[in-house]
């Protein structure tokens, strides 16, 4: 369905190129739900936008984005326009701003339908009412303007819009951030139902691991533009092999769990500056379990599954022998397949 192959995105700025995504390989099977988590600024949204070539002109994208075997990055404009929304649609991070403030939501949902499907205005309107109903809104709401809706409602409109052309892939970028728990729960349930009933593939981005582990089949954790851990959702959440993944997971208190009572978990240190990444493993300055040679070796994803299946992490500690033997060689030798030298 979706296959990312060495996706790299850099933003050109006045102070040089900001490497936002640094070589991401991911696959997503039909009907599968993949969660992407990670720290703020780790490149999640950039990744999502790159999938449909929606990045600003200042971004340079390399690598391959195969959608049903076709490389999005090489498509002609016409083909790309056809794929957009009909093949894959996006629910953007801020629903507030992702809707045109001066158009009714009905018009906005109708727009892709009229464009991608050969239906008349009336049929499109009927479809809009149906979609609104599906996301739990009154069909009458089609005549409302975005500002007349609450954040949760706008988010639902975005979902309805994303489903309008019955795409194969839905990309949801933080669909619930900034919503309170109750609304968040409503929306997650909704997405879950819709995706399940239509066999749509879902790529969901969030910084909230607990939410992702709930909704998704598989989970990817990003740090500084790289995927540092990927695997079955529950496993990544509960038994992360990468120290960053582990730290993220443990930062979520469990209500009623005496372990987290009066004991908030943090991750000391500052988020990495993408333009001045530390040498070696980008996470090593904050890593609680760093090894001496972590500032030398930059590990790539490596099978880390306890029971083998599909769990990978990019940490020297998952390597046999903590990667120590490799570290000794990389200081002098060419990069191996498993480890790249940064200098």
């Amino acid at each position, binding site marked *: 369905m979706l296959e990312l192959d060495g996706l790299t995105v850099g933003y050109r700025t006045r102070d040089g190129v900001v490497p936002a995504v640094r070589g991401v390989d991911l696959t997503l099977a039909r009907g599968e739900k993949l969660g992407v988590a990670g720290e703020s600024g780790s490149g999640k949204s950039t990744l999502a*936008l790159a999938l*449909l070539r*929606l990045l600003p002109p200042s971004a340079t994208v390399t690598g391959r984005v195969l959608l049903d075997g076709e490389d999005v990055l090489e498509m002609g404009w016409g083909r*790309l*326009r*056809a*794929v*957009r*929304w*009909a093949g894959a*649609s*996006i629910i*953007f*991070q*801020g629903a507030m*701003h*992702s*809707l*045109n*403030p*001066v*158009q*009714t939501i009905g018009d906005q949902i109708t*727009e*892709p339908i009229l*464009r*991608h499907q050969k239906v008349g205005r009336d049929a499109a309107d009927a479809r809009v009412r149906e979609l609104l109903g599906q996301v*739990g*809104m*009154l069909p*009458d*709401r089609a005549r*409302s*303007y975005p*500002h*007349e*809706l*609450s954040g949760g*409602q706008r988010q639902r409109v975005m979902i309805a*819009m994303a489903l309008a052309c019955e795409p194969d892939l839905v990309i949801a970028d933080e669909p619930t951030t900034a919503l309170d728990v109750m609304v968040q729960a409503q929306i997650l349930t909704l997405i879950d139902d819709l995706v399940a009933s239509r066999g749509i593939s879902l790529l969901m981005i969030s910084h909230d691991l607990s939410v992702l582990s709930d909704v998704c089949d598989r989970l990817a954790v990003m740090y500084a533009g790289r995927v540092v851990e990927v695997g079955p959702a529950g496993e990544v959440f509960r038994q992360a092999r990468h120290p960053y993944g582990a730290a993220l997971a443990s930062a979520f208190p469990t209500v009623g769990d005496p372990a987290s009572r009066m004991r908030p978990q943090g991750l000391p240190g500052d988020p990495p500056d993408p333009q001045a990444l530390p040498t070696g493993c980008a996470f090593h300055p904050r890593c609680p379990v760093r090894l001496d040679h972590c500032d030398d070796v930059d590990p790539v994803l490596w099978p880390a599954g306890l029971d083998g299946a599909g769990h990978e992490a990019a940490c020297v500690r998952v390597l046999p022998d903590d990667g120590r033997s490799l570290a000794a060689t990389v200081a002098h030798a060419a990069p191996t397949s498993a480890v790249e030298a940064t200098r």
Partner: protein
Amino acid sequence: MTELPPSDAVPHLDEVRDRGDAPRGTGGAAVALADRRGRDDDRLRRNAAYLGKRLLGAAVSLVAVIFTSFFLFRIIPGDPVRVMTHGRPVTIEQKEALAREFGLDKPMLEQFVSYLLGVLRFDFGESFQYNRPVLSMVGERLGPTLLLVGASLAVSAALGLWLGVQGAWKHGSTADRVNTGVALTLWSVPSFWLGLILIVVFASGLGWFPTSGMKTPGVTGFDMVLDVAHHMVLPLVTLVAVVYAQYLLVMRSSLLDEMGSDYLTTARAKGLRDTEVKRQHALPNALLPTTTLVFINIGFVLFGAVLVETVFSWPGLGKLFYEGLSVPDLPLVQGLFVIFSAAVILMNLVSDLIYPLIDPRVRP
């Protein structure tokens, strides 16, 4: 400059009126259904309140203007009676008779009251110089002014908006830079000066256009339309040249402000063409400040056209005012001032009222 409309997108150009936040939704779906009727009533009431508030504000401003018009021009020294008699040797009695006729002998307050009552009946009195009702004099000249100024407004707004949109969409391009540069240069040129140069070059020099006036005397029918159009070219070009930059810059900057907006990414993600994204999504959002600007300018251009009208001997309103000032032809200047100001206030009001039609966020 002008007051620009409320929109979060243009904080720097914007006069944020006492608007507070955008009104929130009126509650959950269930509530909405139950309250359907109530909401319509509510909206009606709120519309009325909004309208009422704007009308009241405009009325207050108008009253202030009427007061001002009466007293402002009375500080200009000069004896209207003397001017009316044109320095002829007239007897004291004749002078007094004239003063009586124009009510200038009465106490100020009484004059003011009768003036006020007149204004309320749209009676601005009779011009000292022309022995004619101010209103009918205005009526005669309004047509040419509206024709010239209206046309220039339409052309400059269209031109400015179009170039502004192109510039913003391709900002930083050579075309953008050249366009903005040319517009700014013309904007910095005195209009009367430009007009004179145009006359020398295109009228008497190349002979392409008439030097001045609105039409050739005696021409009628369809020929007259062509003749007027022919006469209008140079004044129109002058007016347009010096003002279109304003529209261009406002349009450009408000569109630039919209350019980063997420809803444009949404539109692209939906598979729209670039021009469709521009025209159907970006433009309607960026149009708001410019619309207000246009409307406010409609009010202002009546004042502003005096220079071009003078240079091209266009038989419009502008000159009347400044000639009346030196007399001072009190009824005339008072009347014109009130009418001009009322136009500004009215256009402000209209833009206030039109605004919600363009931007649902401003809806009461």
